[in-house]
């Protein structure tokens, strides 16, 4: 049938398959884009793990002789084995094993250990990296959702595309239903008809498939370039995102796209091939209503033209389902995305940039350096334009709070009764809570003491004595109250800090003095209880509402760190520049700080203005990416409207001819067209708007944001533009169809009996 029928038909009806060509192109483009992005996300993650954890697949902890390492190397599936002096388990050396066949890692590593007489407990697997290659071991209990997520999104995209584009194939195939009826009547089998339709689809889709795939690859490269350049380039210490592509990804992309297009073509081809000759020959290609159902609103608003338009839309309901669905989804997604990002922008601005605006200008992370090891603090303070510089480090400790120490306010909302066990544990004599320690350089600590009106001393701690009213979930407007009771002025208050992870230690300062407990507990004098925090870019008690923050000077920490430990590896410097420092000044200051640290410390820096701009760019970038997907979805819908309306002239010519023959004027016909266009474009908007409003209401409620605040920043203009773009596209499609209808010659159509 291909040689005798299809090739000639396609040669002479090049425009008939336009909608199919567009559908195939869009499918290939979207799937190729997705696969390209996913591959690069996977590649980036694998590279990140290799950089952070190492590229080894399994590792044996402990020192091994050279001949043992040689034995490991001689294992069939082992690519290499090397000694790693600084393994994962502290300072103990390890032997890192790299497998040529990664799948053998869980069977061969125990064998290697057995042969070398090493206990199985000394084996460590790089589960995170192995999971990237879909190799999972029985000991790996982490969810590892990256791959399933990719597969799920690709499958969902493929499924959605089938739902959306199969209609384009159906419209194109159904236009020739009568011809296939003739074929059937002269003996073409359903298989032959199906094969013919699928062959035609294959020929129509081959070009767009290749073009769409290539453009998708280019698109993913461009998108990643944008993401890297505009979103992540300013994030300190970030591994750069470099686009890559693998032939297997191309093969997979083509496979997924071909399957998607094939199913989309096969569904209508199967239906059509199964029709009996009687059904197909009787088919006039005209729109038919299965049930008579009078449209009410349109006749009421627009009279007879409204009724005709309503009936036509009902008859086209199935053909326009794709358009309706994709326009609704795209508009809904676009509007929700705009609102969500606006809300997120407002929230970040309020809770982060505005709150910390006067707290920091430059943040320096000094890698692997404790606060007392950093010796450049004064030189930084001495730099021009530096108003203040606080060097600090963070440590984790525990603190027991007996019932009698709890403030009355805290007791009033139930004390620790609602505290999650992951943060607060009940112990003998009270509750063990987290006590984060902020270790400040001595000069900054003394300044902080003065700020809160306490005589500066370097042998004690200042306690942030506040707790949020946990019964009030409004995090935007929290109510704070005293956490613990403040002792009288004549009492020498002390705070017993414990090493984090030694929670089983018996409670209370009274119980402390026995030897072993003293090793993990330090009693520090309390200089002050305050609700005022030092000017640092830190948030306190955000996740764990029950933590009791201690600020202590570096000199004190030197004395007690042996008992408590728990320090983070890095220190931070919070630098405040002069009033209204501009970005250029901050950049210059960063260069100065880098010069001071050069060769002595490994540092990473960020500045407030740059971060604000980066944050805006990130939101903008994400909105562009999501917006592009919404536009793509809308394009599918609009493409469907175009394919449907451009097919009008052929499919509905008898219908229009009948209207004309009973006296419908071109003006009335035009009005009918306009009504159809308005309904098609307007319906998705009308359906989506209440959902958007409800969703915004929910988001505002969940984020405790006042509607007035949101409305000042609400994305009315982008949503309106998107709405107008949909309306304009549908109007254009109908205008083009109208031009076709205008050319119909009434006498010719009514005489044409081949339609019967």
């Amino acid at each position, binding site marked *: 049938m291909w040689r005798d029928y299809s090739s000639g038909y396609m040669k002479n009806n090049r425009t008939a398959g336009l909608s199919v060509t567009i559908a195939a192109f869009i499918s290939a483009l979207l799937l190729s884009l997705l696969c390209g992005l996913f591959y690069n996300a996977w590649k980036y993650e694998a590279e990140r793990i290799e950089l952070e954890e190492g590229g080894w697949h399994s590792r044996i902890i402990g020192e091994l002789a050279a001949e043992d390492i040689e034995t490991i190397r001689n294992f069939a599936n082992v690519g290499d084995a090397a000694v790693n002096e600084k393994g994962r388990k502290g300072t103990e050396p390890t032997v890192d094993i790299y497998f040529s066949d990664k799948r053998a890692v869980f069977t061969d590593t125990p064998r290697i250990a057995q042969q070398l007489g090493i206990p199985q407990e000394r084996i460590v697997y790089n589960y995170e990296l192995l999971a990237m290659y879909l190799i999972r071991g029985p000991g790996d209990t982490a969810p590892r959702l990256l791959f399933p997520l990719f597969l799920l999104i690709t499958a969902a995209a493929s499924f959605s595309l089938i739902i959306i584009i199969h209609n384009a194939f159906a419209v194109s195939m159904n236009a020739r239903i009568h*011809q296939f009826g003739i074929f059937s*009547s002269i*003996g073409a089998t359903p298989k032959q008809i199906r094969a013919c339709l699928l062959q035609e689809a294959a020929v129509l889709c081959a070009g767009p498939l290749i073009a769409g795939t290539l453009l998708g690859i280019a698109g993913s490269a461009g998108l990643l370039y944008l993401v890297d350049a505009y979103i992540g380039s300013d994030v300190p210490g970030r591994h750069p995102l470099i686009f890559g592509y693998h032939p297997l990804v191309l093969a997979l992309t083509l496979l997924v796209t071909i399957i998607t297009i094939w199913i989309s073509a096969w569904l209508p081809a199967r239906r059509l091939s199964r029709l009996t000759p009687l059904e197909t020959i009787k088919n006039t290609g005209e729109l038919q209503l299965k049930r008579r159902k009078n449209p009410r609103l349109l006749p009421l608003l627009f009279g007879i033209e409204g009724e005709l338009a309503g009936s036509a839309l009902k008859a086209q309901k199935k053909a326009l389902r794709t358009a309706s669905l994709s326009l609704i989804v795209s508009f809904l997604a676009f509007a929700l995305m705009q609102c969500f990002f606006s809300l997120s922008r407002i929230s970040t601005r309020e809770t982060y940039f505005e709150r910390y605006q006067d707290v920091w200008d430059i943040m320096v992370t000094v890698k692997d350096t404790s606060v007392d090891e950093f010796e450049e603090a004064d030189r930084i303070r001495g730099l021009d334009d530096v108003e203040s510089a606080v060097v600090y480090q963070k440590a984790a400790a525990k603190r027991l709070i007996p019932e009698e120490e709890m403030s009355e306010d805290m007791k009033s909302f139930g004390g620790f009764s609602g505290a999650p066990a992951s943060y607060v544990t009940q112990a003998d004599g009270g509750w063990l809570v987290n006590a984060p320690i902020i270790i400040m350089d001595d000069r900054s600590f003394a300044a902080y003491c003065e700020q809160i009106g306490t005589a500066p001393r370097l042998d004690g701690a200042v306690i942030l004595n506040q707790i949020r009213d946990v019964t009030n979930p409004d995090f935007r407007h929290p109510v704070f109250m005293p956490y613990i009771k403040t002792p009288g002025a004549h009492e020498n208050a002390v705070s017993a800090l414990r090493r984090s992870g030694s929670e089983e230690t018996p409670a209370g300062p009274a119980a402390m003095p026995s030897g072993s407990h003293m090793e993990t507990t330090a009693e520090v004098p309390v200089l002050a209880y305050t609700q005022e925090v030092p000017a640092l870019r830190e948030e306190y008690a955000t996740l764990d509402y029950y933590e009791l923050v201690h600020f202590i000077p570096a000199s004190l920490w030197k004395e007690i760190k042996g008992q408590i430990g728990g320090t983070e590896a890095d220190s931070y410097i919070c630098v405040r520049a002069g009033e209204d420092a501009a970005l250029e000044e901050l950049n210059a200051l960063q260069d100065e700080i880098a010069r001071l640290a050069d060769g002595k410390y490994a540092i990473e820096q960020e500045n407030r203005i740059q971060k604000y701009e980066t944050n805006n760019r990130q939101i903008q970038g994400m909105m562009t990416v999501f917006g592009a997907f919404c536009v793509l979805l809308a394009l599918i819908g609009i493409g469907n409207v175009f394919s449907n309306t451009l097919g009008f002239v052929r499919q509905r010519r008898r219908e229009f001819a009948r209207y004309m023959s009973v006296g419908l004027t071109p003006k009335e016909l035009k009005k009918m067209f306009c009504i159809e266009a308005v309904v098609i474009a307007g319906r998705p908007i009308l359906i989506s708007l209440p959902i958007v409003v409800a969703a915004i209401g929910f988001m505002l409620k969940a984020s405790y944001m006042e509607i007035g605040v949101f409305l000042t920043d609400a994305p009315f203009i982008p949503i309106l533009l998107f709405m107008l773009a949909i309306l304009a596209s549908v109007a254009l499609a109908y205008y083009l169809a109208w031009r076709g209808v205008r050319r119909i010659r009434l006498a010719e159509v009514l005489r044409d009996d081949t339609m019967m």
Partner: protein
Amino acid sequence: MEILKCEKVRKVYGSGGNQTAALDGIDLSVDRGEFVAILGASGSGKSTLLHILGSVDKPTSGTVIIDGTDLSRLNQTQAAVFRRRKVGLVYQFYNLIPTLTARKNILMPLALDKKKPNQEYFDTITGSLGIADKLDLLPNQLSGGQQQRVAIARSLIYRPALLLADEPTGNLDQKNSKEVVDMLKLSNRNLKQTILLITHDEKVALAAERIVTLEDGRIVSDERRR
């Protein structure tokens, strides 16, 4: 020799209390080489009978055997192959593929079987139907009469056991009608082609050697004219 045999063929449309019997116990036998006209008014069931004989539709009950094949046992694919090889269908509205030339339309049943035509036979039928010089034209470049001749040529190309013609003159003027009927008679005589002509026109029916009259889905007369 019997080529078509219908026994108690019944076709009912609708369900429940809304049933209508289009055919009600048709018994019919046609010998090879016969030219039979099925005559009946609109709604008599003649088109339904044609569709059943052409394996386009299935009877509700009863058996139809054509050239030894029981049509009720055929699935969709087998029915299509049967139509292609054993039955030639000629419709009132020609049903030619508008994008194919007359030649390709005629050869389509063979092309579906990937068979090459017998050139001599092809020349014979196109010559006797008077369309030899129109073979490279598209259907819309032919007159109604010429289109119907192409349709007849297509139905004969596979040398079917039975040629079923459904009101083949219904869309033609008097001159073309006569010519088409003459063509059918000619193919019956020269090619020994068995023909079942379905018509409501008594004058057209007179071209056949046997006239079977249908009324309300039943055969009311079966008359051999010579």
